């Protein structure tokens, strides 16, 4: 048995926290570098870069990616210092998974029908492979398992903000 009896939740949070920090750092870098670059390329290939709505969305995504990368860097350093907040990993997981979903959704929309003709992802690809429709479908593997977005929001509300239990 790992940790004291009946303290499974706390033990799980501790191990998840350690794992989450470094995992999220890598995922944020992948999404923010190659992921965003390929998204811009998809917009260019679709002839959509001149569209002001598209440009606006890309600017918003770039801003959100900056926030994500700053959050994940802080998550790793605060965990290392033993100073993580009780809802930190939930905040990062929620933010990353929903950003991934919105970016892959937007990329699928901009790419149009050609995105539907890509039926395989490269074996080594990450959550943002450029096979946008498959990436979008895959993004639900982030927003549902590992504590769904709804559960993460409850954790943030109760443990992070101290709001009363529902």
């Amino acid at each position, binding site marked *: 048995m790992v940790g004291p009896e009946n303290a499974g939740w706390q033990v799980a949070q501790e191990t998840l926290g350690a794992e989450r920090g470094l995992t999220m750092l890598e995922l944020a870098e992948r999404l923010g570098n190659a992921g965003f670059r390929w998204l811009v390329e998809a917009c260019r290939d679709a002839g959509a870069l001149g569209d002001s709505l598209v440009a606006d969305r890309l600017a918003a995504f770039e801003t959100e990616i900056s926030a994500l990368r700053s959050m994940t860097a802080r998550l790793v350093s605060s965990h290392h210092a033993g100073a993580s907040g009780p809802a930190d990993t939930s905040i990062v997981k929620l933010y990353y998974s929903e950003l991934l979903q919105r970016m892959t959704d937007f990329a699928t929309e901009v790419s149009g*029908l050609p995105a*539907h*003709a*890509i*039926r395989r992802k490269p074996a080594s690809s990450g959550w943002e492979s450029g096979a946008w*429709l*498959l990436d979008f*479908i895959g993004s639900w593997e982030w927003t549902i398992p590992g504590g769904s977005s*709804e559960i993460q*929001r409850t954790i943030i509300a109760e443990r992070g903000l101290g709001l009363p239990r529902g």
Partner: protein
Amino acid sequence: MSEFAELHEELRAVARDVLKAPAPGWDLFAGAGWTGLEVPEDLEGAGVSFAEVAVILREMGRAAARTEYLGAGVLGVGTLLALEPGPERDDLLQKTATGEAVPVAVVGPGPGPFGMNETRLSGRVEFIPDAAAASRLLILARDTRGEPVIVDIPTGTAGLRVEAQPVVDETRRLAVVTADGAEGSVLRFAGDPEAAAGRLLDRAAVAIACDSLGLMEAMLERTVAYAKARQQFGRPIGSFRRCSTPAPTCSSR
């Protein structure tokens, strides 16, 4: 309930039943009278309107049916009905009603991709529904004067190539249609050709919308049924507001 509403209810119930068959296809639909719904009665059709076809399309969406009804029964028939009456058109309409012919319309993004050099057609367009199941193609093109026309070409004609274009959604059968100097017969639209071509695109859009509606209704129903049946933490998950909120949003849209 108005007379039409009753008729549509009946049609909907029959359609739902017919679509329970293991591999519903063109022959089944011809037998049910669906391929000839809009074909005039004197050409062995039912002589009804798109409103009735819309009922069928919604049920096909609900069943996520994998058929060539959209390309041929809906777009093909719609294309033929938009043409100047004539023996070639009437013969095709009749054969569609009986199920003998499967004329798939190649409407694409409009007549732009295809042009004519005398009687020879050239051009290429992607993502055409059901072209691979066609016995003949009705290709929207511009003639030598730039006027939108329909070029009727049997499948297998020299210079015409239809290649299946698989997509992630395995219930759709799309294809790339390429013509390279293929010979076909030119059929003219009744009335203003630009307007007629525009209406074909509208028809395609509405048909997809009907299909999507049926699909969404089926998904909403299944989600609600699951939320009522699935239990967690000692109660149906639908009783947790976070689980039940998306359903009313979906329903009101």
